[in-house]
């Protein structure tokens, strides 16, 4: 019955279905409360290889074809029916406009067809929410919830992917998230892709450079650390405009100059040395600023999310620097760090538990949705 108003879901352990289509992964995840039941992802990554980066139109076409089969598979994996679901959650932004539109259209249709409430939620906050999940009775990452159901105090997150690079302070997943820093140009993952192309390595660039960098000397070349000089950093008392922000476009140009200099001289490009030095620059600036932001904002638990969490050097250096500053580092399993529907469902379930109102079926996808908007009314 379409005229029926959605029922108020079971707020203690809501069964929530989450939909994610903001970039090149079509994800449908299902959770019951904090328990992960299904995390089905269909990626169009292979179709982007020959372009060396995500092509929005190709990603959008793939989302349309993958959506219903992914949904069907997630329901099968979780062993639940659409009728049993208490609420539906979908990424409303930030992300690629055309890609978001596919998931949002489908989610609205699903909400109408099932009569369930719909939550239009923030992709970045969802990346953090994945840390709440439990699988087979234990936390997927580490305790982020206290015994009385609150989020641990002093939570922050550093999100690094092909689409975004951010530092967040998370007071409450439902209504208190603050953006401390972000990239002002390329995302870190994008810089990896571009440099991989310069070095004639494969796509995606993250794993390719990580691999090529092994055995290379990370100090062989002194590549720039974007937005790291005094002018941008300022001091604790008088912070600069970009104290916690990132920039990777200058780094990419610096790598290009080095590669071209070798080519002009007719010499072999030292791929391992350049890859290692480039990676060290990216990872150094991300971990340095993340730890700085954490110590200056009373963040004592830092969650690492996004696809670049797979990078071995990033994990290593972040762990080292967090340990040195007494910060607890939490890294969810990689399948939950990359874009997926389970993180969307996890945030949806949290919002339902907190009694946050559902979104209207008229809401608009927002490619630039700010983190302060955890959900869209």
């Amino acid at each position: 019955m379409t005229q029926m108003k959605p029922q108020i879901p079971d707020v203690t352990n809501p069964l929530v279905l989450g939909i994610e289509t903001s970039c090149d992964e079509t994800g449908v995840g299902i959770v019951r409360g904090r328990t992960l039941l299904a995390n089905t992802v269909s990626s169009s990554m292979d179709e982007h290889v020959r372009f060396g980066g995500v092509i929005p139109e190709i990603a959008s076409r793939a989302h349309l074809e993958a959506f219903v089969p992914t949904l069907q598979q997630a329901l099968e994996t979780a062993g639940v029916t659409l009728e049993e679901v208490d609420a539906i959650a979908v990424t409303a932004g930030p992300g690629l406009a055309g890609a978001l539109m596919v998931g949002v259209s489908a989610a609205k249709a699903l909400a109408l067809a099932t009569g369930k409430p719909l939550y239009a939620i923030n992709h970045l906050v969802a990346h953090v929410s994945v840390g709440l999940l439990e699988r087979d009775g234990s936390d997927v990452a580490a305790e982020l919830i206290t015994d009385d159901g609150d989020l641990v105090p002093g939570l922050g997150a550093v999100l690094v992917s092909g689409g975004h690079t951010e530092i967040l302070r998370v007071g409450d997943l439902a209504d208190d998230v603050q953006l401390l820093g972000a990239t002002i140009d390329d995302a870190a993952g994008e810089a990896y892709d571009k440099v991989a192309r310069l070095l004639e390595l494969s796509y995606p660039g993250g794993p390719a450079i990580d691999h090529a960098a092994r055995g290379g000397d990370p100090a062989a070349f002194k590549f720039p650390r974007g937005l790291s000089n005094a002018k941008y950093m300022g001091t604790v008392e008088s912070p600069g405009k970009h104290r916690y922000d990132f920039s990777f476009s200058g780094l990419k140009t610096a790598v290009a100059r080095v590669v071209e200099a070798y080519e002009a001289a007719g010499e072999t490009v030292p791929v391992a040395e350049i890859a290692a030095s480039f990676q060290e620059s990216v990872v150094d600036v991300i971990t340095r600023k993340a730890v700085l932001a954490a110590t200056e904002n009373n963040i004592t638990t830092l969650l690492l999310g996004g696809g670049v969490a797979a990078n071995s050097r990033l994990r290593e250096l972040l762990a080292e620097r967090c340990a040195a500053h007494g910060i607890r580092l939490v890294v969810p399993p990689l399948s939950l760090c990359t874009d997926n529907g389970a993180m969307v469902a996890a945030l949806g379930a949290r919002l339902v538990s907190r009694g946050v109102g559902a979104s209207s079926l008229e809401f608009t996808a927002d490619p630039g949705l700010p983190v302060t908007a955890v959900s869209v009314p």
Partner: protein
Amino acid sequence: MLLLCLDSSAAASVAVVDTTEQQPQILARWETQDTRSHAEVLTPAVEQVMAEAWVTAQELNGVLVGTGPGPFTGLRAGLATARTLGFAWGLPVHGMCSLDAVANDVAALPDSERPTEFVVATDARRREVYSAVYRTERDGGEAIHAVLVSGPSVGPAAELPDLPAYGRGAGLYAQDLPQAVLMPVPGAVQENAPTEWQPNAASLGLAAAGVVNSGGELSTKTSPLYLRESDAKVPGPRKKATA
């Protein structure tokens, strides 16, 4: 049979159509001319149109969706909506070329105004049109149908065959189309000039009724008629940073 019909190939529209042989009819319809808000408006429109038609999901026999051609993002909003509704309701989802909706309106013109062969054109942007050629044909009984002759395709309006031309695309490039039908036709389904006609869900539903009632079957293919590749180019040799 009762069909929930959606089209988002140009403007967005939703209708409930009863295809019954005696008198196919539109039970309720909704349209917007806004071409940039399909993902926002389609599902609320489905809810509204079904309520107006006093039809529940259980009473529907299927979902019909226009598969384009049309601008990609808007087109996908309709397809994602239709496919998901069909999946959740356990209903078959049928696809039909959106230009068939305009062709159906042409076939429904009064005898004196109806061409035997004609072209339907919609706006493909970039100075091109989406188009298809149809002819009108009487079935065993009294009903007149539009039958596809060629297309759909995309290209400059100037390359279309010299035939009476209908649809917004014909209006945009009337200077290239000597037989563009510019004046409103008394007795037509749509009151505005035929060079303003856009595909809409109600006409699409009536076109589907024509197919079913003349013994045909509706397609279950809902692949979008993009007709153009994505613009993405495989990167060539890299540009010099030091140029």
